[in-house]
């Protein structure tokens, strides 16, 4: 399973993020983004409106799609905080922190154990 499909199946992963939150994902050559609305839209390609850029390795993707959705933030956080061999996640904040906090990313980051 790819992460795009996993997100479509488990939109609750992004609970707490405000409408209009946008995250770009890059996995190898693949690029897509998610948009938070009434549900989660997964769209091919990058968005110029992204709040965050997330890059992850294919090994990290394999690990994440096998994770129960309730544990997703924690496993995602661990892959960022403590990369294991080929499995890694990189995060870059694009928008100012104040805007990100107002969109609910602070609480999500706490759930992920990153902040």
């Amino acid at each position: 399973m790819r992460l795009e499909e996993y997100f479509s199946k488990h939109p609750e992963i992004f609970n707490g993020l405000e409408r209009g939150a946008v995250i770009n994902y890059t996995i190898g050559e693949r690029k897509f983004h998610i948009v938070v609305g009434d549900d989660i839209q997964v769209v091919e390609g990058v968005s110029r409106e992204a709040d965050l850029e997330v890059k992850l390795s294919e090994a990290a993707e394999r690990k994440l799609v096998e994770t129960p959705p309730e544990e997703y933030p924690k496993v995602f956080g661990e892959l960022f905080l403590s990369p294991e061999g080929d499995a890694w996640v990189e995060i870059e904040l694009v928008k100012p922190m104040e805007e990100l906090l107002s969109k609910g990313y602070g609480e999500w980051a706490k759930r992920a154990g990153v902040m």
Partner: protein
Amino acid sequence: MFRRKAAVVVEDKYTGEKLAELPLETREELRRKIEAAFKARKRWKLSLEEKVEVVQSLSRGLRKRREEVMELMMREAGQPRKYAEFEYKQAVALALAYRSMLEIISEKKVPAVSGSTLLVREPFNLAGIMTARNGPLIMPFFTLTSALGAGVASVLKPPNAAPLTARLVVEELKSSLGEKAELVQFTTASGEDAAWEFVENPLVDVLVVFSSSHIGKDNVIKMGEYLKRQRRKFGGFPLITGKLKKYVPQMGGNDALIVLPSADVDKAVEAAVVGGFANAGQICISPRRFLVHGAVYEEFKEKLVEEVERLKVGDPRDPETDIGPIGSGRVLEIVKHQLRDAERRGAIICGGVISPPFVYPTLVEFSKETVMESEEKPLLWAEESFAPIRTLVRYESTKEAVELANDAAYGLRASIYGDPQEALRIARELDVGMVVINENPLYGDVFMPWGGIKDSGLYGAIYLVEEFTYRKAIHVGG
């Protein structure tokens, strides 16, 4: 015959095992590093994008070496794994928010009667930085990345009792800086030599020091002595040629945790335990004096004693350990003295045992008369306790709570639990640089300035990144 060079021996604070032996650098060696950093500062200027990339690369480097970093913190500083994790995450979070943090020093337009006035922040050239053993990762990480963000070259002097985590940070930072690596230097000179060199060397503009208040004040004496030596008489007028330095001391605390009658007692107890006993109480912003309103005093005390007695003391590498060793024999001596004084006053309600390298979590109860009216104040009330020993005092009115909280030589931080409106009113009455309401007393993020007044600091809460710069006003006529 060659004289053997003196060495810095770094020990595991729990086992006593030797972890490393580093050469003890001389002032001459430190001076050469200062000169190298200064030359690099004159040669290189990093763009905002470069600074952000360097710090992201530093963060990646540390995350790849997470276990090694944690191991060093646990062994050389005696930090329990739980607390080392907390400090590690603070560093990673800081790197994530780094770009936003640098907005603090962005230029600003201010009102002008005519034309326009722009305020910009310009970097100093070089900073001498001295960190303490209780923040082996976050102190070097925060100060070096703040200096870099401001555009300042830096020379880091970590404590020789625990320099290895700092050395690793510098190693990763230098690797991230590539050809500009000389902008950051690391020294193992003695604390005394480093302080004198930073004070006397004209290439150093800023001195940032994390230390006890005594060492912080000792640097002021050094600055005075140095300037005194430069004093000449010229036609009856004093002529002093020595350079003045910007001095940013971040010193100790004796913080109060005020529990209001409206407080959620369970949450207040949790805050007292987490804030008061993390890292065996060896944190400057740890609440040390728990001031509790009479309406909830007995409940708070009973629950607190129960929680404190549950804390596990032992090997910092054991994930279950709450209280690790005290990393300094000198601190153990001071603690013995403080405990003897508390015993004499019959005030210990739990703990009270010292079994080197441990101090068992201890609560000491004083009446407000004892701390406010006695000629000789209890040592644990008057001094910073850098161990897991905390005092408990009952108060009956808001006025008393404020008087008790302000009855300290220090003015770093205070925490308040209870009705937020009342807490806000009290917060304005407290002589401290920071107040935290209904939150973990150790709370911090890059946007919350840090620091204190009185024996805790000179400027109240500051943004460290600003302290590496000076403000320049540019007025354009209209």
